[in-house]
């Protein structure tokens, strides 16, 4: 039975809605980007073949730099948001949750900055 006139209370912030939407959008983009990345790197080239030369040749083209930048950024934001949701599920103490999430966000910032730095400043 659905009681009439008792609509679900609207959340104070729409952050979780955007988070939900971001996970879907980034997932669809990553199925293409990561799918091709894994197919090419693991099935065509093979892990043994990858070295500085290969990366250098790949990043001689701005297309692959942008490709890697988008893959890195979407993947890491998707990862961080996923871990945030897992932390909300299992950490029941407010102080501990704030602490561990601060580390998670700081780490996300470092990973994205270092990754973007090398993608855009690399000199072959």
């Amino acid at each position: 039975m659905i009681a009439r006139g008792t609509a679900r209370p609207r959340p104070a912030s729409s952050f979780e809605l955007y988070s939900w939407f971001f996970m879907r959008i980034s997932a669809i983009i990553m199925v293409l980007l990561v799918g091709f990345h894994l197919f090419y790197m693991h099935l065509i080239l093979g892990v043994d073949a990858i070295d500085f030369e290969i990366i250098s040749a790949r990043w001689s083209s701005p297309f692959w730099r942008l490709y890697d930048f988008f893959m890195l950024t979407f993947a890491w934001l998707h990862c961080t948001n996923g871990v945030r949701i897992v932390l909300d599920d299992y950490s029941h103490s407010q102080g501990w949750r704030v602490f561990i999430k601060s580390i998670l966000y700081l780490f996300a910032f470092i990973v994205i900055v270092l990754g973007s730095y090398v993608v855009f400043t690399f000199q072959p």
Partner: protein
Amino acid sequence: MAAFTGWFRAVTYRGREGQIAWMLHRVTGLGVFFFLALHILDIFLVSFGPELFDSLLFFYHQFLLKLAIVFGLFPGVLYHGLNGMRIIAIDFWPNLGRKQAMLWRIQIIVFAAAYIPSAILMLLSMFGSH
């Protein structure tokens, strides 16, 4: 023992396909999180030049790590991606939710069809017939 029975109960709780799908999604997601952190940071090292980067590649060329890629990372990413697409499909076409268990079974067949040949290919190149 208590911990083990706790785990056993969690895994055999009557959630069936949906629960297993959710557990695998979570486990593979967390696994990819740790691998990807390592992977982005190791690629950052190319900015220090070829000598340093190539001298550290032995890490990815170890036998155990290659096994972990073939039997952990690769199927993990593949499962997480396929399961995510199933979730998105159900989100946008809610009627599919009634068939979610069957969709998950189809997803496992698609997973096997993509993973088994890929794993064979990777194992063949690992054992030298490249």
